[in-house]
Structures are given as C-alpha cells and as structure tokens.
C-alpha cells in the first residue's frame, strides 16, 4: 500500500514511532557531518542540508530548500547501531585472587539485554543491502549472534529512496541501489518529492504505523511515476553514465589470480593502514575480543571491539604477525571484500556506498584500484591458483556461541616440559569429532583455541603448551579449578572417508595432539582401517608426546634404551619416530620427518593426515607431491589466530577460509594455493 505524507504527517509519523516504544535513530548534524544518532523527532533531521563528497573529502552545504533527506550518506551506516563498536558479550564472576596466576571463574552471566528497540530512519538502498550482508555474517551461518539477531529483529526500518546520488556512489555497479526495491527489508519506504513524501508499506508493523495516522491521500499514478521512473530510474541512469564503476564480473577470480600484482605495492605507498575504510564500511565485521578484568573487580567482562584487518593485532598470534606489510593488509581487505566474501557469504561485501573513498584520509578509491588491476592483470604465476570454495553449509547450532560454560579440571597430566594435558569435565553431554577444538579461557587472561586431544568418558582432554599468557595460565591450573569452555568448533578429520584405506598420519611436535583422537579411533578399529602408519617427529626423545601410548599402538618400536627391545607381533598400526637430535644411546631415527618419509616407502594411494607446525606441513606436502600423492588424498590441520571460533571476528582468515569454521582440518586442495604465501 502506498500513501502520501506531508511534512507534518511525517512529523506525526515519527511521534507515533516514538510512542510505539522505539528509540529514534536518524540522520542529524553533528560535528560538521550528517550522522546517524539519537533524534527526538523530525526537527533534528538535517532539513535543508546536503553533503558534498570527493575522495578524502566531505563537506556540508545548505541546499536552499526544505528537503529532509536531501543528502547522500553519513560517515557510518546502521552497523554502528546493530553491532556497537564496543560490546560486552558475557560477564564472568571471579573467584578470589590467588597467590599466583589469574583468578578462576565462578559463574557466567549473559550481558545486559538491550533497551528500547531502535527505529532506524532514513536508511538508503545500499544500507539495506549492507544490512542483508551483515545478516548473512551474523545470522546466516551455522552460528547465530543472538545480540545482532535480537537488535535486527526488533528494529523498525524506515528506508528512503536515493534520488540524488552522491559523487562517490556506485551502487548501480553492485546492484544495491539507488532505489529501495519493493522486496527489500523495510517497514516503510519513503520517496521524498518536493514538499511531501510517498510512503510505501513493507510490513505489518509499518502498516500499523500508517493506519495510526488516520486517513491519508493516495498517490496518483503520475506521482508514482514521478517517484519510481523519473526519480529512482533517472538516478540509476545517471549513475550508469558515470566513470566510477565497479565491475564485479569474475572479480574474485581476478583478484586471487593477481595476488602479486605490482598495484598492491603502489597502494602500499599511499595507504596509511589506519583502518578508516574498514570502520566506515557498512559490511565489515572484524572484531577482537578482549578480557576486561580490572584489578580486584568481582567480575570480568569479555568485550568485543571493532577491529580491522589493517591493524597489527588482527593477524597476530603469540609473537607471529601474518600480515606485517601494509601491502598485505590492503590486499587482504580488498580480496576479502570483493573476492572471498562471495564464496563465504554468497554476495560481494561491497554495496557501492563510496564511504571508504570519502573517509580515507588520503582518498584511496577502491574502484580505481580494481580498475587498474583489471586493466592490466599479471599472468598468474606458476603458483597454484587459489581455490574459491562455495560457502560452507553446516547445520545451525542453537544458543549463543560466545557464551562459555564453566568446566572443571578433573586432572592434570604433565606430558613434557611446559606441556600438560588437562582432563576437563564439561557440563552436560559433550560430543565432538577428533580434529575439532575448544576455546579454553580464564577470565583474567582470555581465551585460546586448544584442540581436543581425546575424550575419555565424560572427560575431554586438551594438551597445551605454555607459550602465551593464556596458555601459561591454563597449564598452571590444578585439579578442581574451573575454566571457561566453548566448543566444540571447527572441522574434523574425515574418519568416515578414510575407511577401507591405508592411512598415513604425519605429525610433528605437539601436532600429534589434534590427531590423537583420530589415531585412537583407527587403532581400535582394524576392520575399518586396514593399515595405519604414524610418522612422528619431535625435537628430541624427551619431547615425544604421548610416548607410552604410542608404544602401546606398535609394540615393535622402542623409544629409549631403557625400554626392553622385545619385538612383538605388530598389528595394523606401525609407528615410526624421528627426532632432531638425541643423546648417544638413542637407537631411533634422527632427522626431520621428511627424511623419515623418504626412508619409509609411502604409497601414492594411501590417505594422509598431517598436523604440525606450518613449516613442517609445507615440507611434508612437498615430499608427498614427489611421491605422487593427489591433493584430494591429504588432509591437514592449520592453526591461525582463532578468537571467536565461529567465523565472525575475521582474525583467522586464510584467503577465502575462516580457519576456525571451515578448518582447522582442510583437504589439501582447498588451501594449496595459499600455503607458504606471504601475507596469508
């Protein structure tokens, strides 16, 4: 249904919205820009004002009329309202301060509920499109962020057609504007025509609001024509005629084939890596999660902050920085936004609003950069092309994925120096598949991803090395202590697919831990896995993980001279161990695991599972390539900076993948083009 609304009618409409219990959020002038902020009513709108935009430049100007929505776009879209820049996820009650180490958790509370629902006034077509993109991120995958979902569901949306697109707009390229399409997600849509509005109802809520205004005039055909055809279509035609376009056709493939394009270097010379583009972008969602546990406070909070792929912290993991160069950071942003986004969420991450161009302090123009690469693509180098897999479809899980449970440490087993296995008892039934990981944490220090190294009845095993503050604190826990646990997350070893095949497991160092569950399964089922070989490398004989257990799998091997050299009949499991160095008396292999691979003839037809430090994985894969093993016979487990563990914080991105959600176990062919590439 459509109706006509005078300025006064519009004012009454907003009053009604407010009376209906919504907090009004609309465009208003603040600090020399039109921003979305709390407004009291129509008087707070930027009536008679417009904005002029150019790369790195934004200015307000008076229009000389009484247009209510006669401007283009402010610096930030409604993302700010739907995912606040700083938001508390959970509160954790803390135990008493201890002599050493952090306090342990005693209870978990959800963060406060929101206040009034929001009425988002004045949203443009590109902003609705951006909201749809964010819907896919926060609610469209296997995990749902309940905070976003709740706000989004409660929000009333009053959208406005764009009839005067701005200098930097290119929404026609991205097919996200300028008009608000009838099927878009709005409650009411306004088209501003001179001194009045045409209003289109998009929902029952919207209808009720219109009904509350009493009898309204219906628009004539001429008026509808003026709005849709002359207004919106003319705006679209104008945009079509402009030079600034973003050609989305084949863009993901183009960008991933041009990862070494010289244009990235030119960009890096101009880009400040300040992150402004990402924080004004209406679809960006990267964030970091911080533990806020001030001195002696009785509770700590897990707080998420907007983050950016342009910051150091975003791609850092205890000491390692995966994207140190500005070139790599910009490339990450653009290949994600315009490339990987498509495979992850089924849509481009760009809605053509031009904000990243306007609010870049040095005026870098994303459309120009894409055009430059498109105009002169470099021939893909001999590196493997980066595969762009379709979005993963995993069944949705219920509940707040950020809400941890409090699990109890049942026992602590010291495995190696600074390596322990925590047997943890979760609350309730817990089922996982080998290869998956949990987020373990302590409220004073934070969370870290720890692979599940086995399950014994109700006890989950986690083998942890003390490397950073959080893992050090976890390693120091004692039986009876509690910790926060979220999980299980991530992909698992493909045990079902391996049935009937000869399996070779190649592990290095602590990389054996994520494999132990799978190995136990295969050891226990000779009928399913006719031959299992484990090639395991460690730094020294003292650093062989799970030595006793390995010994029990294959009684023919011995690790140390003290072990009796009894050669038992070997079963279907064969274990080969090598170390980097050993004291005299060691009769086992010495040398890297790849050397061991050369020594033990490996079949090109076996299935391979690989886990260990990334550098080892790369060498192992090279060896497998030599043997002629096909990429679809190899699975490997990757490690990156997993933080949210549910593909929302963006920190563990690896090309088109979220390692936390799409990994950590990948089939080789999925990531072959990325392994060992700088900046990933």
């Amino acid at each position, binding site marked *: 249904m459509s109706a006509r609304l005078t300025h006064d009618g519009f004012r009454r409409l907003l009053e009604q919205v407010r009376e209906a219990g919504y907090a009004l959020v609309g465009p208003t002038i603040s600090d020399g820009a039109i921003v979305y902020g709390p407004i009291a009513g129509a008087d707070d709108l930027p009536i008679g004002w417009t904005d002029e935009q150019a790369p790195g430049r934004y200015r307000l100007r008076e229009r000389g009329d009484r247009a209510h929505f006669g401007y283009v776009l402010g610096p930030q879209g409604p993302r700010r309202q739907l995912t606040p820049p700083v938001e508390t996820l959970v509160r954790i009650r803390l135990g008493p301060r201890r002599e050493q180490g952090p306090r342990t958790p005693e209870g978990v509370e959800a963060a406060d509920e929101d206040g009034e629902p929001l009425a988002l006034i004045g949203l443009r077509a590109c902003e609705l499109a951006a909201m749809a993109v964010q819907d896919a991120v926060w609610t469209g995958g296997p995990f749902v962020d309940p905070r976003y979902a709740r706000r989004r569901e409660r929000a009333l949306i009053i959208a406005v057609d764009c009839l005067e697109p701005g200098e930097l707009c290119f929404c026609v390229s991205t097919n996200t504007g300028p008009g608000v399409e009838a099927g878009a997600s709005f409650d009411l849509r306004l088209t501003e025509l001179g001194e009045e509005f045409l209003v289109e109802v998009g929902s029952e809520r919207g209808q009720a609001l219109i009904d509350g205004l009493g009898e309204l005039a219906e628009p004539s055909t001429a008026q509808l024509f003026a709005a849709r055809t002359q207004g919106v279509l003319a705006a679209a035609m104008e945009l079509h005629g402009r030079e600034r376009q973003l050609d989305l056709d084949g863009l993901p493939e183009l960008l991933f084939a041009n990862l070494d394009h010289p244009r990235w270097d030119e960009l890096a010379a101009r880009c400040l890596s300040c992150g402004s583009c990402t924080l004004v972008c209406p679809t960006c969602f990267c964030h970091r999660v911080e533990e806020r546990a001030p001195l002696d406070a009785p509770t700590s909070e897990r707080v998420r902050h907007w983050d950016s792929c342009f910051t150091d912290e975003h791609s850092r993991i205890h000491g390692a920085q995966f994207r140190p160069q500005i070139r790599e950071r910009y490339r990450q942003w653009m290949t994600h936004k315009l490339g990987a986004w498509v495979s992850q969420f089924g849509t481009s991450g760009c809605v053509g609003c031009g904000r990243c161009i306007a609010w870049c302090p040095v005026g870098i123009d994303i459309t120009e950069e894409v055009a430059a690469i498109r105009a002169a693509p470099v021939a893909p180098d001999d590196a493997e092309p980066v595969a762009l897999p379709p979005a993963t479809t995993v069944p949705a899980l219920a509940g707040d994925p950020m809400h941890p449970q409090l699990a109890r440490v049942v026992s602590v087993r010291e495995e190696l120096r600074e390596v322990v296995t925590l047997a943890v008892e979760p609350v309730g039934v817990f089922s996982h598949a080998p290869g998956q990981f949990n987020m373990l944490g302590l409220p004073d220090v934070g969370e870290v991803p720890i692979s599940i190294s086995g399950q014994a009845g109700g006890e989950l095993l986690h083998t942890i090395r003390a490397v950073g503050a959080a893992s050090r604190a976890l390693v120091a826990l004692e039986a009876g202590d509690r910790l926060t646990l979220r999980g299980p997350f991530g992909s698992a070893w493909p045990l079902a697919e391996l049935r009937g095949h000869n399996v070779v497991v190649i592990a290095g160092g602590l990389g054996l831990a994520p494999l132990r569950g799978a190995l136990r399964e295969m050891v226990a089922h000779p009928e399913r896995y006719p031959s299992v070989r484990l090639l395991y490398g460690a730094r020294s004989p003292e650093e062989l993980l799970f030595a006793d257990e390995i010994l029990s799998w294959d009684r023919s091997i011995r690790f140390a001279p003290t072990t009796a050299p009894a050669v038992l009949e070997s079963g279907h499991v064969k274990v080969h161990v090598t170390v980097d160095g050993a004291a005299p008396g*060691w009769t086992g292999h010495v040398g890297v695991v790849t050397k061991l691979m050369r020594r033990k003839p490996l079949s090109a037809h076996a299935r391979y599972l690989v886990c260990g430090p990334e550098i080892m994985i790369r060498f192992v894969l090279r060896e497998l390539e030599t043997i002629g093993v096909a990429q679809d016979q190899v699975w490997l487990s990757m490690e990156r900076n997993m933080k949210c563990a549910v593909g929302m914080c963006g920190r563990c991105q690896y090309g088109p993948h979220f390692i936390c959600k799409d990994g950590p176990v990948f089939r080789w062919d999925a990531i072959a083009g990325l392994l060992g590439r700088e900046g990933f």
Partner: protein
Amino acid sequence: MVAPPPGKSPHLAKLEQLPLAEVFEPSHLELLAQIASQEDYAAETTLFRPGDEAQWFYAVVSGRVSLTLQVPGRAPTIVASLSRGDLFGWEALRVDSRRDITAVASKATQCLRCSGAALRELCELDHELGYRVMSHAFDRVARDLSDCRVRLVDMYGQGC
C-alpha cells in the same frame, strides 16, 4: 669405459639390493662391488671420529649408524641416524680430507665400504660411472642440506 673384472665379487648381491643400485648400470655395480668390502660392527663400535683421516666411504646394509657431534662442554648429540641404503663418510670422496664427526654403530650393523681413493680412481677412469656416483652423491647431500635448513628453524619448538 672400464670393463668389469672377471669373476663376481661376493658383495655384488648385497650391493644390488641397496636403493643406490637403481642409478647404476649392472657393469658399474660390478666394478663398485670389486672395490667394496663387507664390514660387521658390533653395537657401540666407533667407525671414525673427528680428526681421523677420511679413508672409507660407506653404505649401510643393515643396522643403524649414528652421526654424533661433540661440542665441548655439552653432552654429545646425535644429529643424524643412518639405516639401510644410506651412504655416509662423504669426506672420503675428497682428497686428503679428515673426519669432523663421530660415526658409531648404535646397534649391530653391517656396512659395505670402499676406499675413497679407490672410488675416486674408478670415477676418474670411467667418467660415466663417475658422473653417476657424483650426481647420486649430490642428490643425497642436497637433501641432507635441505633437511638441515628445516632443522635450523627448530620447527617443533613452535606453538601448535
């Protein structure tokens, strides 16, 4: 080209079973077998130690040989272990060279060995044989070098 001497060396059969046999012509293997001798070492036998004249060049037939480095003030460290098919004692391929590492049979071990001087002479006489010996040697040394580089980064020491 050098013709193999009449009469089969008793070591030829052993040599033929080693992986290196793949890169040589049968005639070459026979020549190599002629200069080779079979040695059996009891566990804990030291084959050579740093400073020794590098006389022999070895191939492991069975058992295990540990190459050990001794850094003054530190416990000795096994840096490589060799088993069936592995070649070691490359120093003997160079003229007048000495050992810089200790080789110990860490269990009962059988090796074929030949004198470096004899092997060098044989390679000199037959360049085809020489080329194959050297390219095989190069392949093995290159792999060892690559492994060494991997070990330089102490990769298992990282997180994971």
